[in-house]
């Protein structure tokens, strides 16, 4: 079963520049309680803006994933 290929980090001290949106950019999360979409910037508190729930989920990848029907 082939999930997305794992890409090894290029340098040991590069703590994931590909994932980190950097300052000013926002990433979308989903509230674990009210299912509301939550936009977070770097440094923002991990908290739902609607209900204050502290558990947020990452969205599913937008990339196509291939499986064998076996």
């Amino acid at each position, binding site marked *: 079963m082939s999930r997305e290929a794992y890409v090894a980090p290029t340098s040991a001290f590069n703590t994931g520049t590909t994932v980190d949106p950097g300052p000013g950019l926002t990433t979308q999360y989903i509230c674990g309680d009210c299912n509301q979409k939550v936009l977070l910037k770097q440094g923002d508190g991990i908290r739902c803006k609607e209900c204050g729930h502290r558990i947020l989920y990452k969205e599913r990848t937008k990339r*196509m994933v*291939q*499986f064998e029907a076996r």
Partner: protein
Amino acid sequence: MAPARVSQTELDARKIVGVNAETVTNVSSTDIPGHYPGEDHEWDLEDFRNTFKVKFHKHQPFDCAFSLIGIDASIANAFRRILIAEIPTLAIEYVFVHNNTSIVQDEVLSHRLGLIPLTGNPAGLRWLQQYRKPTDEDPVGSGVQDVNTVVMKLKVECTKADNYDELNKKREDDPRLLYKHAHVYAKDLEFVVSGRQDTFFSGEANQIKPVHPDILLAKMRPGQCIDMEMHCIKGIGADHAKFSPVATASYRLLPTISITKPILGNEAKKFARCFPKGVIGLEEVSRSEAKQKGSGYEGHEGEKKAVVKNTFKDTVSRECLRHPEFEGKVKLGRVRDHFIFMVESTGQYQSDELFLESVSILKEKCASMKRGLAEYTR
């Protein structure tokens, strides 16, 4: 030396496999050259033509039962195995998941999709070729083409029903009414025509679709969605059970029951109860039978006796062999060359078609064997 004369009763007796309480006797066929000195048992096409019989018992599109009489177990078994594992059928093989926020994991959903029996225009299904996967020796394979790949789509999103609030007020709790697409069924699969496939698979009747539209694939709630594309290819059951065209193909040997000594009165009733309904019948002992000396019927005129009615229905449970009163009065067996086939199709091809297909595949195998031998001895 002239071939030895063997009586028909002897020949018939040789065909019976003995079924005893704990043992099975006379298992192997003996009609092979050299087994009986002086007898000619060489296989002869003309002879086979005259003795071989096919008899249908049930003939439904997707379920049939028939007898092959006068064939060797090796050939009958070859047909059975080919039916299960070597007739190519179309099934979903690759799943490209664009989005799946349902609670069914991608892997599990893909697996479920693969097992859905598909159907479509039979001529088109026959026109489709087998897809060759890329391997180390053949890095390209056959490539994805219209002749070897059928594309299907599944794009469903669960939303609240138009009258959701009204239903909710009435405390409706059926999710299928409260939400649209709460249940994802096989009928939600959508066929996508590619290339020359439109000549075969255009229109509602001819398009590739699941045999059973109501197979439940997943359940969803508002906000969840499934968006995937599938590639169906032709494969064989030996590779994966989803490609097997039958569910399942099997045979059994015709049972025989011979009552060697009379079973009368209440014993006859008990004897009949040892078998499924219709196997054993009760008949009155006739005057002429009662008159016959040494028949065991003397003085029993008018009494009920057990007679064999229809051994086809027997399951050979051997129940009658457990009772001491029937000891030495009955002999159970099976006819070694009478194969009762049961072929149940999953729906892509008709059952009788499948059997003929298995015959042609065996034929093709023999031809390739012959070619190989010719090559080898050249």
